[in-house]
């Protein structure tokens, strides 16, 4: 005869314990059976693409999503394989990652740190994403990178140009393929010197947040080192739309160069306003007045229209590059979508491929395995020449492009022209460089 110990009180008690267990965020309570957070157990692995799908950078986010979908298609054996064919590593064969079909979920960062963290958290906890990638802002990247470190998943950053991402806010679980403010300055300064000479007076207008500050610091240091004088550094509110009252005093300040440490809508508006005020037509100190936009994005440059003509800046990648990797990516992306990819698209495609390749080489999705595989990893064939993922700070080092707004564009995509490909040796810096000081990489966190 069987007896049952089930009582009403016992049932409630056990249900409560079980309920509490289910309700607790899985992010911090990974099963003891799993070696790491979101260890894939079925025939697929889920990646989390966290991009701005709303807000001012939604178009850039849309281009990132296109590139992610293309990367997933290539990883799963679809399409023409894109840069998998030119990548120096031959681990990826179109059979997913470690034999698992690649699936993805998407989140909307809204270009807001709190929203980006919430969407990343949701993808990790609810969708089981083993890696988070994407973004179009340094503030967002730093916030999500911190979350991924706590959660025990890998973060492959999208567009983030602040020195801090791999400087004082670097994390062991985070990796940045995109270049940074220091590298922009190191690439631009010699070109500016050869174009405009070493006797110049620069006036900085700077977006008042982490990216703007580090960009300003980097460009001012690099230009001062070649003899330029910094006349003024003016911080502009991120929410500014009309920069006329900041631009109007520039000509009267004795400056003959205006450096716009602005990105996105800020850049479009400040550059448009500067051109409206006729700055580029003026002669100051006996020299033509010049404008410099240290960080260019083709998508954003489009918003400024003809105002970008002849204005120099730097960019991470451009579709007109003629190396085999770039050509393969442009062909693949252009055939699928009908227009050339942006630098944002290129960056996130590379990050997805690099993650997949690292997992393949490591033989695991364990974040610590991925970190080990990516640290100090040298590769080629992804569109920027030979590239190093430095172990000390998880920053990629590769050639940097100095570009100029094209005078006679032949199409709506033909806005920038590459004037110089600055070699890695010129833009690399010591890991303990003062501009990147503070913070510690720490050790990888597998989560479970």
């Amino acid at each position, binding site marked *: 005869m069987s007896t049952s110990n089930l009582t009403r009180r016992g049932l409630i008690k056990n249900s409560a314990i079980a309920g509490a267990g289910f309700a607790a965020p899985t992010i911090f309570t990974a099963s003891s059976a799993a070696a790491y957070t979101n260890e894939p157990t079925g025939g697929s692995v889920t990646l989390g693409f966290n991009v701005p799908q709303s*807000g001012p950078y939604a178009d850039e986010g849309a281009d990132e999503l296109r590139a992610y979908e293309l990367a997933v298609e290539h990883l799963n054996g679809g399409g023409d394989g894109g840069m998998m064919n030119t990548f120096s590593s031959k681990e990826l064969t179109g059979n997913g990652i470690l034999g698992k079909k690649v699936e993805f979920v998407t989140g909307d960062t809204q270009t807001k740190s709190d929203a980006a963290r919430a969407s990343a958290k949701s993808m990790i906890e609810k969708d089981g994403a083993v890696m988070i990638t994407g973004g179009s802002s340094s503030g967002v990247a730093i916030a999500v990178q911190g979350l991924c470190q706590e959660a025990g998943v890998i973060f492959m950053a999208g567009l983030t140009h602040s020195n801090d991402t791999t400087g004082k806010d670097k994390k062991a679980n985070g990796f940045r393929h995109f270049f940074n403010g220091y590298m922009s300055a190191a690439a631009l300064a010699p070109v500016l010197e050869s174009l405009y000479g070493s006797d110049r007076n620069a006036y900085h207008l700077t977006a008042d947040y982490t990216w703007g500050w580090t960009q300003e610091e980097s460009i001012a240091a690099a230009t001062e080192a070649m003899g330029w004088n910094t006349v003024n550094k003016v911080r502009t509110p991120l929410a500014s739309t009309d920069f006329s*009252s900041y631009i109007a*005093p520039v000509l009267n300040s004795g400056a003959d160069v205006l450096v716009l440490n602005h990105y996105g*809508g800020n850049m479009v508006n400040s550059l*448009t306003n500067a051109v*409206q*005020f*006729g700055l580029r037509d003026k002669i100051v100190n006996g020299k033509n007045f010049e404008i410099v936009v240290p960080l260019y994005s083709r998508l954003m440059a489009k*918003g400024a229209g003809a105002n970008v003509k002849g204005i120099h800046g730097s960019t991470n990648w451009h579709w007109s590059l003629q190396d085999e990797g770039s050509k393969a990516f442009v062909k693949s992306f252009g055939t699928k979508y009908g227009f050339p990819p942006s630098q944002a698209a290129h960056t996130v495609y590379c990050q997805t491929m690099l993650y997949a390749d690292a997992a393949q080489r490591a033989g695991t999705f364990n974040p610590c395995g991925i970190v080990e595989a990516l640290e100090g990893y040298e590769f080629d064939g992804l569109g920027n020449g030979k590239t190093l993922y430095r172990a000390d700070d998880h920053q990629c080092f590769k050639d940097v492009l100095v570009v100029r707004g094209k005078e006679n564009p032949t199409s709506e995509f033909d806005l920038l022209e590459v004037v110089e490909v600055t070699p890695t040796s010129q833009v690399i810096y010591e890991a303990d460089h003062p501009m990147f000081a503070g913070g510690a990489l720490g050790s990888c966190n597998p989560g479970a």
Partner: protein
Amino acid sequence: MDQILLQILNGLDKGSAYALIALGLTLIFGTLGVVNFAHGALFMIGAFCAVTLQRILNISTVTTDPTKTDFLGNPATIKTPVVETWFGPEMGASIIDWSVPLAILFAIPIMAAVGFIMERGLIKHFYKRPHADQILVTFGLAIVLQEVIKAFYGANPIPTPAPEAFRGSFDFGTYLGYEANAIIYPYWRMVYFAFSAVIIAAVFAFLQFTTFGMVVRAGMADRETVGLLGINIDKRFTIMFAIAACVAGLAGVMYAPINSPNYHMGMDFLVLSFVVVVVGGMGSLPGAVLAGFMLGILEAFASMNQVKAIFPGIDQIIIYLVAIIIILTRPRGLMGRRGVMEE
């Protein structure tokens, strides 16, 4: 002194935009008693009228040029605007170049229709509801409108240049005895200021010197009595809503060359315009105009390096700071009337 003159000029064009939006807001509030948070969206739709006309004028016939290739190596496509085919290359190019001023004519019927549909289709159902309900529904409408614009035009700003003749800047300094480049001001901003002055004058003249305007003013003062006189004041107020939408829309059309239009530009102006209305005095049309220019100029002054050196970050808070001071000292605003927005 030259810096002060420079910032007054800068403040005038900012103030022009604030004044035009606040004028429309006040017209709607004064006539219908509705706090319209969708008014910024009307400004944005006006700017996109300029974008739309520019695109219409750039509708092109497409041919291929086998001697050139596109980014994929296929034969390049050559686009020739239809207006250039119709009117000849020079005339066609001129028409495209003048697309923003032409968009004024394009925008008037569109904005009037948008205003009419907005008022008859949605807002009239909220006349007798609390202001909080009106704010919620019009704010929701503003978000819907901007998302619709984003869906059609994307999130990136779209360049909408002024005609070639108005690009560049004018050196005021040399005429006032200062050095060259001391006081420069873009031609198009001067046009914008003049345009705003004309629109503001036209609205005041319309209200002051026409029978329609007289009835509207009477309705603003005492709606019930005007109704008892057998005048259909609701119909006139609907027309005033459409006129207010046109004012905001035209402000947006002419603003398009100053900053490339994007779907969010209405929201950027909305909060500041409400501050302008409150500072000017709820329901006061001259107050809205006065406060618009005053706050625009103050904002420009607060951006001066000399001011920021003494009060860091003052440029970000000046308008709100002034609003607090004015509301504390003059609770009805600069030119507010007794009984408006008061229980």
